[in-house]
């Protein structure tokens, strides 16, 4: 099957935080912003995909009904735990790439704070044996962090550097929730959640939304967009399953998904200028430097220490501030990452711009499922 080039013509997001607006209102705000950014009429959107995790059924129709768009286009709800927002964009991409549509929209939205019990940690589904035995996502990453520290000699002070870097990156990003200076002491003295991960090493359970309008080359030409952002790769993989020992300081599904994206785009790690990854916990980002092929096994910490992954370095990880700054509303993050990557490539990120950026990667994993490292992983590579 012949796949056409697909471009991103409009993006929108809300300011992330503990918000009083429920998920559908957040989604509406992001959609309206993206449509305005694209400079098109709502009528031109031919399909919509909405990614969400915990806000119930018919979430997509809830978003579009109050915009008067129900009845005008197919609206498809997408679930993949924390990967949902990016998966929604992937589905919109497929509609245009295959020629079904000229313009589609992928939305990620979530409100956790209005509905969740405070002071508790997200867990796998109760039908999962690990969930039944008490597993929570922070504990699963705690296990990975403990093992990484055992294998490499990394310390909690080392892990804290990820929060410091990402909050620094977010200092001038108006959409980020937490931003600016934070010290190692503040991070390590914050409440212990699951060793070695203290509160400030964990993404907050915030609310938010992002929306991405994708279109064909014909539309890009009609709109007169001089330097459009192209989707060079959009890949979805599911988690390899076995019940035996796994390398928990590697990440088999992330390696699978990003390799697939490198192959699809013809752009390898050496050519990627920035990455928004699933930095739900400090350890996650360090493991992803390695799992995504930016350095060798066990070298992640060195990249962090040497300044390779911050502004001015080889590949800027989390220029928007990552989940450690935005928090992580389950269905929203995957879309919000793409929104920010588009803004970066367009040179619109005053005060936190990755200078001269030509390529950007984003990645979100989804779900803890016994026998897999994650259930799902969605990766995008954009280029300009």
């Amino acid at each position, binding site marked *: 099957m012949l796949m056409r080039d697909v471009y991103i013509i409009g993006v929108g997001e809300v300011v992330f935080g503990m918000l009083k607006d429920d998920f559908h209102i957040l989604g509406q705000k992001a959609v309206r912003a993206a449509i305005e950014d694209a400079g098109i009429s709502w009528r031109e959107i031919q399909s919509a995909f909405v990614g969400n995790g915990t806000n119930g059924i018919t979430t997509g129709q809830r978003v579009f009904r109050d915009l008067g768009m129900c009845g005008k286009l197919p609206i498809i709800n997408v679930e993949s735990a924390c990967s949902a927002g990016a998966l929604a964009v992937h589905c919109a991409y497929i509609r245009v790439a295959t020629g079904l549509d000229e313009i589609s929209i992928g939305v990620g939205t979530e409100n956790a704070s209005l509905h969740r019990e405070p002071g*508790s940690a997200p867990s796998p589904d109760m039908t999962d044996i690990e969930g039944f035995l008490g597993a929570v996502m922070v504990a699963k990453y705690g296990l990975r962090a403990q093992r990484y520290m055992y294998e490499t000699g990394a310390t909690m002070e080392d892990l804290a550097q990820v929060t410091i870097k990402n909050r620094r990156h977010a200092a001038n990003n108006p959409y980020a929730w937490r931003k600016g200076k934070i010290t190692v002491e503040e991070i390590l003295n914050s409440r212990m959640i699951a060793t070695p991960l203290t509160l400030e090493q964990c993404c907050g359970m915030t609310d938010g939304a992002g929306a991405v309008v994708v279109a064909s080359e014909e539309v890009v030409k009609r709109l007169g967009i001089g330097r459009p952002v192209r989707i060079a790769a959009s890949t979805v993989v599911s988690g390899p399953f076995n019940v035996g020992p796994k390398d928990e300081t590697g990440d088999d599904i992330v390696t699978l998904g990003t390799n697939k994206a490198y192959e699809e785009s013809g752009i390898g790690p050496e050519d990627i200028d920035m990455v928004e990854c699933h930095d739900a916990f400090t350890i996650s980002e360090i493991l992803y430097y390695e799992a995504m092929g930016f350095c060798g096994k066990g070298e992640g910490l060195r990249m962090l220490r040497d300044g390779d992954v911050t502004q001015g370095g080889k590949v800027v990880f989390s220029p928007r501030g990552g989940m450690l700054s935005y928090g992580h509303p389950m269905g929203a993050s995957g879309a919000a990452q793409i929104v920010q990557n588009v803004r970066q490539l367009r040179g619109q990120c005053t005060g936190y711009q990755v200078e001269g950026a030509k390529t950007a990667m984003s990645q979100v994993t989804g779900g803890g499922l016994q026998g897999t490292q994650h259930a799902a992983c969605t990766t995008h590579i954009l280029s300009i």
Partner: protein
Amino acid sequence: MTEKKKVGEEEMTFFHPDLFEVPEGEPPYLKGYQCKKCGKIWFPKFLPCPNPDCWSEEMETIKLSRRGKIYSATDVYIGQPTMREYMPMVMAYVDLPEGVRVFTQLEGKIGSFRCGDEVELIAGPIRDNRKNQPIIGYKFKKVS
């Protein structure tokens, strides 16, 4: 997160007859499942055999080793909302000689477990059922 109510779950007091045996006067053991067709060993119980080139529905119950090695352990302070009385607790991956990795709670002092520690299987409360009665399940403790 909404918790779906399963029939009988509110009264469960033992987790789980398919997985865990506590014989009278003998040490407890975990039950693995070996596929009679392809020979792969699985834990917990799967039917059919999850090997996609197999999918046989004939599995043999096997007694798994009572001792294993901690791959990693973490002290959990904030967990699931219905398990507050059990916090803090130690959670771990334990590797058994049969090539099976088990996610489990550990019995013992917070902060006392290290990667590589030898542990052995015991029975103990893992969470409460909906009637606030403890559910007895499998756990591991350090080999004395």
